[in-house]
């Protein structure tokens, strides 16, 4: 596998080889799918929309609907205003969504289409909405695009009706799976707090098969709910890269207090999430949640010898990797290489501090990195385990490493989008996966005389 790779370290300063990120529009499309009755719309060439739909579909294994402005060379020269206006007219006539969420592409950004103006001039049926976000592919990553669409939801839709705040909170869940969003909802319902979560792709990208197809499934946050988020007392923004900016805008626009948190992956981050709700609303922690937490601690103590002290390489989206790195430290593991493809020095600062506090020395931490570089690091000094998206499988095979799939996208294994990694239950799943990967490797590689029944 990958015999073509250079045997010695080489200079790699330009471009990406085996990228660990993709472009903004994909994230914007995913976020838009979390609005009920929404058709995401890609303002660019058909190919962008085709690629984004295919990529999301491969991960979720559920229908991903979106339309395109279908630019041709003419539109690229003269501007895409006519294409967008025609699109808006046709989409409402034929596909009849409640709302269209338009994102741009590097094509429409480079020619400088003025979306707010074009949308203003478009024929939008009474009661329907069109929102937009600028998602130039030559800045940030798919996480930036997700964050951008969340910001657009707030800017366009959230409103404070001026009659005082309601005893409810908003949750911006970040670029997580529908299974994670369901789990967040379950935890909050155990705490008994009223919540508006947006975007919410549960019920959209994890739908049951009933032989009754719905182009717009039952799930997703309704436009009315997003509007009402302006009346909430507080917003929990999960993940600094995907969610914090939208919470800031909501605070400025509607006076909703924003509380920046990590994604609730791992015990520490889940504790913080639950404590933030308890502290704000003064609710009691139900025994069922305490039990779940206790089970995680019990499992960690019981199984630490499966994984403690092992060297790990982790890559993926920044909010996921930040939270997971903290949990790996809780597990007593040693994250020696931590990488995200998304640009942002904050990632490096936060992880580096975390590792220093834990006494991990000699680690390499990088934002805007790529998997070619990660593999070079692993070749210089090996690790015991690789954790990341499906793209890690090439490295895992070439370097003969156990591999745990985590984050977005997972293209070669099913069921991941349905199974949460957030919350205390998510901790158990991560412990099981990490532990199993290492033990399966031990069972596979050990001599017959060392092959044991009980581990």
């Amino acid at each position, binding site marked *: 596998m990958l015999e073509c790779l250079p045997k010695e370290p080489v200079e790699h300063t330009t471009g*990406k080889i085996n990228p660990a990120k993709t472009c903004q529009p994909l994230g914007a499309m995913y976020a838009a799918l979390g609005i009920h009755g929404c058709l995401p719309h890609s303002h660019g060439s058909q190919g962008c929309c085709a690629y984004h739909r295919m990529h999301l579909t491969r991960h979720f294994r559920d229908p991903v609907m979106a339309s395109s402005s279908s630019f041709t060379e003419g539109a690229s020269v003269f501007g895409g205003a006519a294409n967008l206006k025609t699109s808006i007219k046709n989409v409402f006539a034929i596909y009849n969504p409640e709302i269209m969420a338009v994102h741009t592409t590097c094509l429409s950004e480079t020619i400088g289409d003025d979306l707010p103006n074009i949308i203003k001039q478009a024929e939008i049926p009474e009661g329907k909405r069109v929102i937009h976000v600028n998602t130039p592919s030559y800045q940030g990553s798919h996480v930036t695009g997700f964050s951008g669409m969340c910001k657009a939801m707030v800017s366009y839709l959230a409103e404070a009706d001026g009659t005082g705040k309601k005893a409810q909170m908003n949750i911006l869940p970040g670029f997580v799976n529908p299974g994670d969003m369901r789990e967040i909802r379950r935890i909050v319902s155990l705490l008994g707090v009223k919540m508006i979560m947006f975007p919410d792709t549960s019920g959209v990208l994890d739908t049951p098969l009933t032989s009754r*197809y719905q182009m717009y499934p039952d799930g997703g946050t309704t436009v009315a709910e997003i509007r009402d988020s302006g009346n909430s007392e507080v917003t929990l923004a999960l993940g600094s890269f995907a969610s914090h900016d939208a919470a800031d805008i909501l605070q400025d626009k509607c006076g909703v207090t924003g509380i920046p948190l990590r994604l609730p992956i791992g015990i520490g981050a889940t504790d913080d999430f639950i404590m933030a709700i308890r502290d704000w609303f003064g609710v009691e922690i139900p025994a069922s949640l305490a039990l779940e937490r206790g089970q995680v601690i019990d499992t960690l103590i019981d199984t630490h010898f499966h994984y403690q002290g092992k060297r790990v390489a982790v890559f993926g989206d920044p909010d996921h990797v930040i939270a997971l790195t903290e949990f790996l430290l809780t597990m007593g593991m040693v994250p020696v290489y931590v990488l995200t*493809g998304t640009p942002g020095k904050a990632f490096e600062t936060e992880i580096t501090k975390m590792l220093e506090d834990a006494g991990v020395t000699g680690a390499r931490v990088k934002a805007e990195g790529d998997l070619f570089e990660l593999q070079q690091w692993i070749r210089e000094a090996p690790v015991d385990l690789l954790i990341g998206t499906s793209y890690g499988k090439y490295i895992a095979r070439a370097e003969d490493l156990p591999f745990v799939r985590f984050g977005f996208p997972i293209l070669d294994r099913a069921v991941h989008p349905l199974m949460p990694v957030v919350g205390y239950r998510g901790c158990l799943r991560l412990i099981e996966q990490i532990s199993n990967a290492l033990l399966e490797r031990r069972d596979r590689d050990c001599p017959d005389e060392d092959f044991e029944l009980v581990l």
Partner: protein
Amino acid sequence: MLDPYPDTVKKNRKKHLVVKNETAECCPQIEANTRTIPGIISQRGCAYAGCKGVVVAPIKDMITITHGPVGCGYYSWGTRRNKARADETTPKEKIYSQLCFITDMQEPDIVFGGEKKLAKMIDEVVAAFHPRAINICATCPVGLIGDDINAVAKAAQERHGIQVIAYNCEGYKGVSQSAGHHIANNNLMEKVIGTGTNRKPGRRVINILGEYNIGGDGWELERILGEIGYTVNCILTGDASYLDIKNLHLADLNLVQCHRSINYIAEMMETKYGIPWLKVNFIGIEATNESLRHIARCFNDPELASRTEVVIARETARVAAVLEQYRKICRGRKAFAFVGGSRSHHYQHLLRDLGMEVIVAGYEFAHRDDYEGRQVIPTIKSDADSKNIPELHLSPDPERYREAHEYLGLTKEQYEALIKDVPLSYYEGMYPDMPSGGLMIDDANHHEVEEMVARLKPDLIFSGVRDKYIAHKLGVASKQLHSYDYAGPYAGYGGAINFARDVANALSTPAWKMIIPPWEIEDTKGRKSHA
């Protein structure tokens, strides 16, 4: 089906639909290769996808650098399943198919130009990997900001002494992937094909054009053709090497599998070198048998003809019993097929072998000739979009051009007789193979597919990944015919067995019978009494 459309859309879409009418003399005209209406949820991709994703990326020993922001290169990394392995001239160390190279243009590159970044990346890639040659594929912003990738390629070629080829395949060109196929064909024809001098040893040297080795299809064809006694020079571009493509012209016959994506090279090689081309279809037992017989006839060699019959008899017998068990499940089932620019036609043969009928078939990015046959090409009107794709006007190579009959070892008279029986340089399109009353639909969109499923109730939909789960939610089985749901090969004899098994499994997987929960079944039957 067209009712909800605004008038302009209705008028447009009507022209993309043709119903097979046995009594009509020829195929009614179908509109194809024209713009998709903005806002319509089409299956189409872009010129970059057709050039880089389809034609160029499978070339295993070239490094393909996508010049643009991160997305396009990332999405086309590892998703098309064109398999590659080492061979006598290309060791594992020279295969780059599983890597992804992108200049990852940032805002300053868009503002000030990305040429320097591209040049630097080429330098680093050459130093690190030492590839035999490099492709550079352009994405949308590259053309808009005016980066001269051809100049960058030329300079890099001089600097490094290896060929560096630039493809101006910006996504906005043309109306679909098709534009990209054409751009890739032009570049390979102009810059690579004909630059080699090594003819493969052996007799009856042939190329398989437009075979991308998805799931290993090309290797199954190579096996069959090798057993009969042909020397496969190059499969273009599935598992192809740059070295083989340089020698593409040193063959006696070009077989064309995917007509849409590669007919340009077949035609240009005929013009420049005189090499005849034959449209083949290796999808389906009968179709494979017919194609093999056609190829054998081209060479008019009794020994070849008899070996062909031996292989046909042996292979057909080998698969017949296996297919029969799956035919029991498949027989009488109706299917839709919406794939690419040849598969919706090719698979009709294999499905017929299984007793299934394709009642609706369409292409995403075909031209009229793929539906109606190549005789309509002179009547196809060019428009603003097709005019933007350059045509190469080649003339016969003064040194290398030979008459077609000389390549085949025939006399002129034998060749004249041959072309009356075997459709050399011709493709009849999908229409003749459509069942009576069947619907041909160009650039089918989401609304139309949903409506047709409701009305015609197919048992299986063959399409891409975007349609796959929609079909499932509609209660209809589906198989991806771009990626074969990660299985294959589906071509040739061995492929037919794989396909039959996968289709039978898709139709019969037990969960289909459990969709309605028991409490709802009870509700419809009336509650059970618990007296």
